[in-house]
């Protein structure tokens, strides 16, 4: 299941990152990242804070624009197209169409507080006109049932616990049935006793055949669920491979140092 950088030909269906460079003003954040993630696999990205792992994740649905290099998902360039030897940014409409196929779950949930839980999940379906009002809400109830929150449909997000809110955010990210799901530290804003319920939902998704990329500090979760672990530090991939290798027998001194701190 796991892939290394050699097997480019057979995995064009997955996520591919090539030579990704990104700077915020004078501060380089990504300094040439190459990744190949096979479709249907779960990748956990770990690394110290400020290492660029969240920025990398956000380039995968074009929330961040790369300065150099490209990201492609299922063989399609994300956020750009090639023309006259350069990569040109796509129109906002085209970017929105691509984002509809990529689910994104943020650390702070970012549910819409003025909409009910069901309305939050129905919103992307209504916005993209893929379903009418009735169908959108039927689907929202169905998705909320899958994350165990059918009974909270008519509540507002703030009436829910952090773990429940994050499960709603996952249901919302699933509404448009994306093939790729991105999680940006999905449990970092949660009280310790609420982390488990969210990780359980993500584990369930890992078995659904979707491609998952999770930025996380949960080393135990990475060991349990990941097919592939990527350790990033200083804007470069320091080490990657199956969890048994990266987490239990790290080859690089920086990986060992980081794992020593988080354990």
């Amino acid at each position, binding site marked *: 299941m796991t892939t290394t950088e050699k097997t480019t030909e057979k995995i064009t269906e997955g996520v591919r990152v090539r030579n990704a460079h990104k700077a915020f003003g004078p501060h380089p954040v990504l300094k040439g990242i190459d990744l190949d993630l096979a479709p249907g696999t779960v990748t956990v990205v770990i690394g110290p804070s400020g290492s660029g792992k969240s920025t990398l994740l956000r380039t995968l*649905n074009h*929330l961040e624009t790369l300065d150099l290099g490209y990201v492609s998902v299922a063989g399609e360039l994300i956020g750009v197209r090639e023309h006259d030897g350069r990569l040109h940014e796509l129109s*906002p*409409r085209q*970017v*929105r*169409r*691509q*984002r*509809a196929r990529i689910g*994104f779950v*943020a650390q*702070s949930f*970012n*549910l*819409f*507080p*003025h*909409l*009910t839980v069901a309305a939050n999940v129905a*919103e*992307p379906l209504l*916005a*993209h006109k893929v379903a009418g009002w009735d169908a959108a809400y039927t689907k929202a109830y169905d998705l909320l049932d899958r994350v165990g929150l059918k009974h909270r449909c008519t*509540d*507002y*997000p*703030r*009436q*829910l*616990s952090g773990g429940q809110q994050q499960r709603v955010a996952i249901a*919302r*990210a699933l509404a*448009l049935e994306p093939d790729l799901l991105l999680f940006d530290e999905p449990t970092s804003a949660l009280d310790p006793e609420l982390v488990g319920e969210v990780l359980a939902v993500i584990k369930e998704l890992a078995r659904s055949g979707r491609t998952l990329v999770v930025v996380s500090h949960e080393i135990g979760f990475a060991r349990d669920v990941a097919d592939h672990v990527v350790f990033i530090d200083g804007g470069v991939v320091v080490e990657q491979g199956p969890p048994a290798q990266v987490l239990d027998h790290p080859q690089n001194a920086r990986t060992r140092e980081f794992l020593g701190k988080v354990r």
Partner: protein
Amino acid sequence: MTTTATPATTEADPPAPPEDPLATRRVAPRRRYGRWVVTAIVLALTVEAVRALAANPAYQWDRISYYFTLDVVLDALLVTLEVTAVSAVVGFVGGVILALGRLSGNPLVNALSWFYIWFFRSLPLVVLLIIIFNASLFFPRIGINIPFGPSLVSYDVDGLLVPFVAAVVGLSLNEAAFAAEIIRGGLLSVDHGQIEAANALGLSPWRRLRQVVLPQALRSIVPGYVNQLIGLVKASSLVYYVSLVDLFGIVYQLESTHVSDKVAILLVGTAWYLLLAAVLSVLQHYVERHYSRGWEVRR
């Protein structure tokens, strides 16, 4: 689960050992004698003030009720309502456009919006109204023409700027500048994560504004905006300077011609302005309640 010789202490402990009677005493709240004194004084002053106001023969209650619904007063009230309503709507639309302009990444649009707001916020409304009323001195004719080319339509400014139009144009220009800053403040108060979530879900800019940003921004816009609207109702009294007889205008005319009814006429004006503000304040309550859905609830 070892039940050895440990005595009764492992059973459910009583809240306090009975040998300490202090531990079983209830806590009585402090007596606030000062509060009783203050209440008595304030109550006495209030009763006296109400009595002095209500029983004052200068009020001429019968004259008040006569002027309150007098035809010319109601006509003038209608003028106030019309001028205010039109300016409020035009001012709001202009305010939204200016607020978006101030938040725009386009430096020219940004600078122009800033300039507009600076200019019309700085100019006293009376001055602005008089300038507009006399706009024909600056621009005798107004029309649409092809830039550097022939004119398509053109109108005589003096003919267009009847008092009502001058009043509405002046109030709207001024209102838009103040509304813009209130609306901008509201838009800035929306958490950036909300915009990012809308982007990540692929919402269009229009849907993002209408479904996500504006409903949340309005929550903090409404209190300041109702302030502004009440200010507009009162500022509309300045349209008297462009020869429009509004509520203030009629009160001013009546009290100078019917000197014996001066108090009654002034009180009628006061009462109508208070009523208009009261309507807006009640409206504010319901609009605020609407936009606070989902916010006040706690687990």
